[in-house]
């Protein structure tokens, strides 16, 4: 059965979507990733979509769901490599991918994830307020 590989790299899970996913495959990826997060105790998820020539509402929802589940498991998610024409289409479609952080490429995405793991957002300023 076809499956999208999930690789552990350091503290991160790395997923590179290289094929035009049908909806069932997207659902399977969402489930696999959540399972892997628990098993590996990874702190970050990097999803490379540079090979995707389309993100429709279903794939957009999958990305948002992954980010939301990862957040509940204390994990940071960054989506990298979105093609310009995909970004233009997403906005016109009306999707804003709430809760998803993005970076231009895998290098920058990993740097962002490591930064988020080491200094979780809202921590630095909020502490002094108590």
């Amino acid at each position: 059965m076809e499956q999208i590989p999930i690789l552990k790299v350091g503290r991160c899970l790395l997923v590179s979507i290289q094929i035009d996913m049908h909806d069932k495959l997207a659902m399977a990826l969402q489930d696999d990733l959540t399972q892997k997060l628990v098993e590996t105790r990874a702190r970050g998820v990097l999803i490379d979509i540079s090979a995707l020539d389309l993100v429709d509402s279903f794939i957009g929802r999958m990305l948002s769901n992954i980010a939301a589940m990862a957040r509940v498991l204390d994990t940071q998610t960054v989506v990298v490599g979105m093609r310009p024409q995909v970004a233009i289409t997403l906005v016109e479609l009306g999707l804003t991918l709430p809760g998803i952080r993005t970076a231009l490429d895998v290098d920058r995405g990993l740097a962002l994830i490591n930064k988020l793991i080491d200094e979780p957002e809202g921590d630095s300023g909020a502490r002094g307020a108590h």
Partner: protein
Amino acid sequence: MHVERTSTLEVRTSEDVVRVRQEVRNRSGAVGFSLVDQTKFVTAASEIARNTIDHGGGGLARIETITVPGKRGLRLVFEDQGPGIADIALAMQDGYSTAGGLGMGMPGAKRLSNEFYVESVPGKGTKVTLVRWKAT
């Protein structure tokens, strides 16, 4: 209006949705759409193909290369024999969903097309037509 070329695909499974996307991608490339316009129309096709399955119980997609004097374009016709849409105006609103989705499919696909028509008879089925013209 002249129809240059027609192909018809089944829309019953999530793999069929991928096949519709690929055919619309190839055909919009052949018409000469820009990469951005191809991506917009393929995305619109994906949304409506999914609706044909989720709401219509499956159906057919007809992909037509069309010409009128001075311009060429692509017309997509999705037809199902499902329960139909009770309130088309409501279905066209952003965020309205009866299938637990985001409710972006219909209004989003309309924004990504140049022309968009919905005909539906409750109990008989739904026909959604999308047209995009090659920018001149």
